[in-house]
């Protein structure tokens, strides 16, 4: 019986990769420490998070009006606004803009949304040369791999792998010095920037009152992509519109601190339409592509709509125990970690229905979210919805919990009656030697026991408790997690 690989398969591969495990561990600790330091030195941080929650909720509650206002403002600046219901429409719009501009090369700033709509293959199919320009995105584009972290997409690669990749793909002399490797990318990409016709970016926000697009980065590649090419296209999820600059400042006060522990990222750009008369750089034409791709469906659900507050800082990934072990690729989506668990199934296409079940419910993500998204609550709601409706949110993929509804009902009945429970326990003890064998033979049971040891039932729990208690106490004394 074959089935499409899911989270369990992909995470098993990740857990078996010792190099990846080491990279992940040091990366999440690094980001965790930086964020913790930044917030410890940030008076009023809790009020700042409340403010972002309220700002985002207020914007979402009048989303259609803000989008209309944004459209008017961008148009008044001489820019063009395009609306895309899904990824395919967005890609077609970009291809059309490129064709009209007679563009042959495009440079891209790092953006989650263009990963979401799989823009690169679409532009390449339209005959464009497309270059990722964020260092990590460039590395994984050369390697032909998807990103594995919102903030650090190449976190799964070490310096030797990058050195070998640059030697093989760019003909550079092998080095594993990060500064030298960065210089190789700088030199190669500088020529690309100066010759590119089209610069494609995402957007951290757009301001309805002025038509300003806000872009946040550290490397300067987004500034290059919007300064050198003739045409700038920004692709933005519709949930990112904000009323004006006060709301943008509220977002900026927490964004970089949550993402990297900086007070502000190296570059925050406020771009308002094409360059003006007499200016000698900046794009001559500006396009804003507004993407729905499932977001209006998310807004319709009061339990799930808080997902749309997300600033894409990546803080939730870095504290997630599942992310630390499984890594970003296990999500099979550009959005990974707790926010990926929420976003991926909601974006539809039948992807990621199994993701909400890959959560320990520890709640660490909610502790750090700068927009105060109740990520564990959303994940539990997704589980419930998946159990209630096998077609939720999209009928394309059958999935769901390994424990069937019937089994759950039976357990409730047995556990609810002391007599039945004792009888079941006694039956289990009698059958114990056969359980391991049965679990290997019965396909339904194997799904459960593949990653779990069958319990030893012959010894009653009361008899094994003293040893278990000693073990737990020892771990507590060592300060380890039981």
């Amino acid at each position, binding site marked *: 019986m074959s089935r499409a690989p899911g989270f369990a398969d992909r995470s098993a591969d990740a857990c078996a990769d010792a190099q990846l495990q080491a*990279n992940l561990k040091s*990366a999440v600790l690094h980001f965790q420490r930086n964020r913790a330091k930044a917030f410890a030195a940030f008076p009023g941080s809790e009020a700042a998070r*409340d403010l972002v929650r*309220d700002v985002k*909720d*207020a914007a*979402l*509650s009048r*989303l259609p009006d803000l*989008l209309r206002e944004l459209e008017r403002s961008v148009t008044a600046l001489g820019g063009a606004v395009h*609306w*895309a*219901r899904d990824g395919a429409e967005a890609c077609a719009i970009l291809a059309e803009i490129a064709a009209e501009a007679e563009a042959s090369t495009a440079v891209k700033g790092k953006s989650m949304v263009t990963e979401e709509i799989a823009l690169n293959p679409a532009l390449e199919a339209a005959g464009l040369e497309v270059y990722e320009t*964020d260092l990590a995105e460039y590395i994984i584009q050369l390697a032909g791999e998807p990103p594995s972290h919102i903030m*650090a*997409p*190449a976190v799964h690669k*070490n*310096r030797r792998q990058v050195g070998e990749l640059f030697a093989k793909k760019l003909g550079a002399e092998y080095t594993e010095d*990060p*500064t030298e490797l*960065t*210089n190789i990318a*700088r030199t190669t990409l*500088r020529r690309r*920037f100066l010759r590119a016709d089209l610069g494609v970016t995402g957007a951290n926000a757009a301001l309805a009152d*002025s*038509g*300003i697009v806000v872009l946040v980065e*550290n490397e*300067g590649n987004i*500034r*290059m992509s919007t300064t*050198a090419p003739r045409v700038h296209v920004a692709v933005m999820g*519709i949930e990112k519109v904000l009323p*004006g*600059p*006060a709301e*943008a*400042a509220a977002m900026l*006060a927490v964004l970089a601190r949550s993402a*990297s522990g*900086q*007070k*502000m990222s*190296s*570059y*925050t*750009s*406020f771009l*308002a339409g094409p360059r003006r008369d*007499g*200016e*000698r*750089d*900046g794009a001559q034409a500006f396009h804003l592509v*507004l993407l729905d791709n499932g977001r*209006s469906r998310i807004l*319709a659900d*009061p339990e799930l709509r808080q997902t749309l507050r997300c600033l894409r800082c990546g803080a939730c990934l870095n504290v997630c125990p599942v992310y630390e072990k499984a890594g970003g690729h296990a999500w099979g989506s550009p959005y990974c970690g707790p926010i990926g668990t929420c976003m991926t199934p909601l974006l539809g296409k039948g992807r990621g229905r199994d993701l909400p079940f890959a959560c320990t419910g520890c709640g660490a993500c909610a502790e750090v979210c700068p927009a105060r998204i109740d990520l564990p609550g959303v994940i539990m709601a997704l589980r419930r919805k998946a159990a209630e409706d096998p077609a939720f949110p999209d009928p394309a993929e059958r999935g769901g919990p390994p424990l069937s509804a019937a089994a759950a009902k039976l357990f409730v009945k047995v556990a609810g009656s002391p007599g039945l429970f004792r009888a079941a326990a006694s039956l289990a003890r009698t059958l114990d030697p056969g359980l391991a064998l049965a679990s290997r033979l019965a396909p339904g049971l194997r799904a459960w026991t593949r990653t779990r040891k069958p319990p030893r039932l012959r010894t009653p729990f009361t008899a094994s408790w003293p040893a278990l208690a000693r073990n737990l106490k020892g771990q507590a004394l060592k300060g380890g997690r039981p």
Partner: protein
Amino acid sequence: MSDESREHILSALEDALAQAPVASGPAAPAFPEPADPAAPDWPALAREVTTNGGRFALARSAAEARGALASLVKAFGVRRAVLWDHPALARLGLADTLAKAGVEVAPPDLAPAEFKEAASECDLGVTGADAVILESGTVVAIARPGRERATSLFPPVHLALVTRETEILPGIADLGPWLARQRGEDGRPPSAIHCITGPSSTADIELVKVRGVHGPTTLAVVAVEENA
């Protein structure tokens, strides 16, 4: 296609909000009180700029500002520079300093295509900050004719002057009201405003911090007290 999609998306959003309105309406965002204009707190700015990996110097006269530029030219072996058309640069006589040091300055009348190439050949870009944020050590630069975006981006060294034209903002939150005031006579905001917080940087290879990716390796902030 786009018109039909526009109607589709807007009506889907309106339906979404109508069928599941926010129960009591979200709390009105409680923005922090706008801070009073700050006095120039150079030690605070110096601390933040250097924390971000930049260099900071305080010049107590025009002569000291010229000296700071001359030592930057020497330290980085600057041979070509691109300058903003900015009153402070003219007032401080920086072009003379560059000429004396044998530095070639990109001509102000280059056509856009030539300007792009020329700016990329420069070792130094000099701008005058429109604002600074003390909380984060951020320099804010507004693009205008003669004040190109590339000047603070293409060359490996960026010198940003903090002068009497520079507004001092205490915190990141003060960027909101400041941005709201940046509207031209036609009511439009400037085409580009860049907040620059330290040199261009990355940590994409094994989380090792590297300065100077696509933008400058060095950010030098020189605060000039002209009438002290």
